[in-house]
């Protein structure tokens, strides 16, 4: 409409004309392709399924799989964690809650232990940064596939559960 626009210039970008179809009429009515797709589905009915019935069945994973966490213990059976908050600081999902307290006086050479150590497994993204950050090798990841529970509260693993995991 512009008076300044040269009349010979083709106006491709602003055109509302539909592009000419390159598909044949058989393709455009879809029916053959629908039948073809249903045939594939029908064939899969008689094959062995590749999925498993999670959570009743668990997949087999490698030894290095990053699954649920575990708090480790030293040779005397005491937890190694000193509540330094390094894992909580490194955690990108903010799923670790720690509250520190003084270690029992009979624990020779230990000052601090976690009174509360909770991991919210629903928030956890299983990245393993907590394991990397730990200066005491007190937290590690097992190859247990994350469990399934019916309430949110059950997903919050406390200190005792993590120690026995």
């Amino acid at each position, binding site marked *: 409409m512009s008076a300044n626009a040269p009349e010979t210039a083709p106006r491709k970008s602003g055109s509302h004309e539909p592009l000419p179809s390159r598909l044949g009429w058989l393709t455009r009515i879809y029916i053959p392709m629908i039948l073809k797709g249903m045939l594939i589905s029908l064939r899969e009915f008689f094959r062995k399924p590749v999925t498993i019935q999670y959570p009743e069945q668990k997949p087999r994973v490698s030894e290095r799989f990053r699954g649920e966490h575990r708090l480790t213990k030293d040779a005397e059976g005491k937890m190694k964690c000193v*509540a330094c908050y390094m894992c909580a*600081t490194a955690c990108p999902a903010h799923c670790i809650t720690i509250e520190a307290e003084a270690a029992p006086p009979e624990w020779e050479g230990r*000052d601090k232990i976690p009174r509360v150590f909770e991991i919210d497994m629903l928030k956890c993204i299983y990245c393993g940064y907590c394991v990397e950050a730990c200066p005491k090798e007190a937290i590690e990841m097992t190859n247990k596939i994350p469990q399934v529970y019916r309430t949110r509260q059950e997903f919050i693993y406390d200190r005792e559960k993590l120690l026995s995991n």
Partner: protein
Amino acid sequence: MTAEVKMVNMKIDGRDVTVPADWTVIRAAHKNDIDIPHYCYHPDLSIAGNCRICMVSVKGAPRPVVGCATPVAEGMEVTTTAAAEVEARKSVMEFLLINHPLDCPECDQAGECKLQDYSVDHGRDHGRFHEEKVRKSKSTMGPHVKYWGSRCILCTRCVRFTDEVSGTGELGIIYRGDRNEIATFPGRVLDNPLSMNTVDICPVGALVSSDFLFQSRVWNLHSNPSICPGCSLGCNTRVDLDAKDQIKRIVPRRNDAVNKEWMCDSGRLNFGYVHAGRLQKPKLGGADATWKEARRAALELLALNGGANTVALISAWNTSEAMAAILDLVAVESPAARIFGYGNPVVADQVFPGFTIYGDKNPNRAGMEQVLGIADPAASLKALASETGSIGTLLLVHNIPDFVITPEFKAVLDRSENVVLLDFASGELLRYGNVAVALPTLTSFEKAGTFVNNAGLAQSFEPVMEPATYGLSEAEIVEALKRDVGAATRAGAAA
């Protein structure tokens, strides 16, 4: 101060600086924003020169010298970042860390530790010491201070503090050589009222506060500046809060005109009242009420008989702004009311060689003199208590934590028919039968205000946290009350 101070011209890292002739190199550098690392040097303590980290090179000197103990001189040329002193600092860091346990995960100082900072800046990334480290004792120095011997670098800042500032001299160094430890003298404990300053000035995690012990990692705290309301000095403070806006600790903030870098222990620990025992909501005759109901009741009581028998009793713990707001309210609502002041009883000052803890436990007595014209709150309360006859309505603006009700104060309360109480605490006063209306206010940590200290210095502060209750500041309450009065007047005029 008229004495002529002799100045010298010198060069630090190529910059021309002019400083007084009795200064040392480190002070001249810090004054001109040139950082020289230091452990044992503290601007308010004597020079010890024992940590050796502040090495600088002086032109003409054969080897690096310590910046803290080298006096400045005319024409001196100092470098702080040349190869010689960098190498010297690296060696000093290595020696300081030889017997250091590297227990940063368990140490409360981690995150604000000079050993960590300077190790990153000047140290090497690995240790070359393969022998066994010396393990030293762990002890409780006093009610607020614990000592981890292995972490100590023996800078003796704490020893010099107890010698020079608190003057109590509890601390000394025992044993010899690499078994050196800081300890209290036999039979002594570090229990002076300034003991927690040793925790602040300890550049490493050797002296830690038992009250803050394992409470939080410091990088999880956020800090805001404030003014301590504990006494009439008004120490400048830094309030550290956790992610849930709970105050975790209060430490001094440098202000050479007020408190230097010191603060008393009771001021540091006096924040429990912010989080416990608060008046959450307005109360009307002992039951929870809405702000609107409580304001209406308060206004009715204040305007009884045109305020002829109304007394406003204001404590010296209130900010100058709160006092002005109450004056404003009284002028509008009960112009015939009389105004009195009161405060915590004044006890004797505790004077130390380098610091004084004032016995006037009222942060804003001078402000009260400025705003209300009441110079002596105790005398003002005495004058009110000596009167006879009942008080119709007592507008009591309290805001004192841990207040002990004196016989005089009780006499005034007993003579009052109705009390309108403005307070942040749900304490003893509230259980007093004649408190008709109680309006929740805020602590000085939750509102802005001004305290005028005993030297006449007005210090304003901002809130450090969100209000922990439904309380409002006095100015906000008075504004709402005045709005109510205006609405009532307009309604009356329309009817």
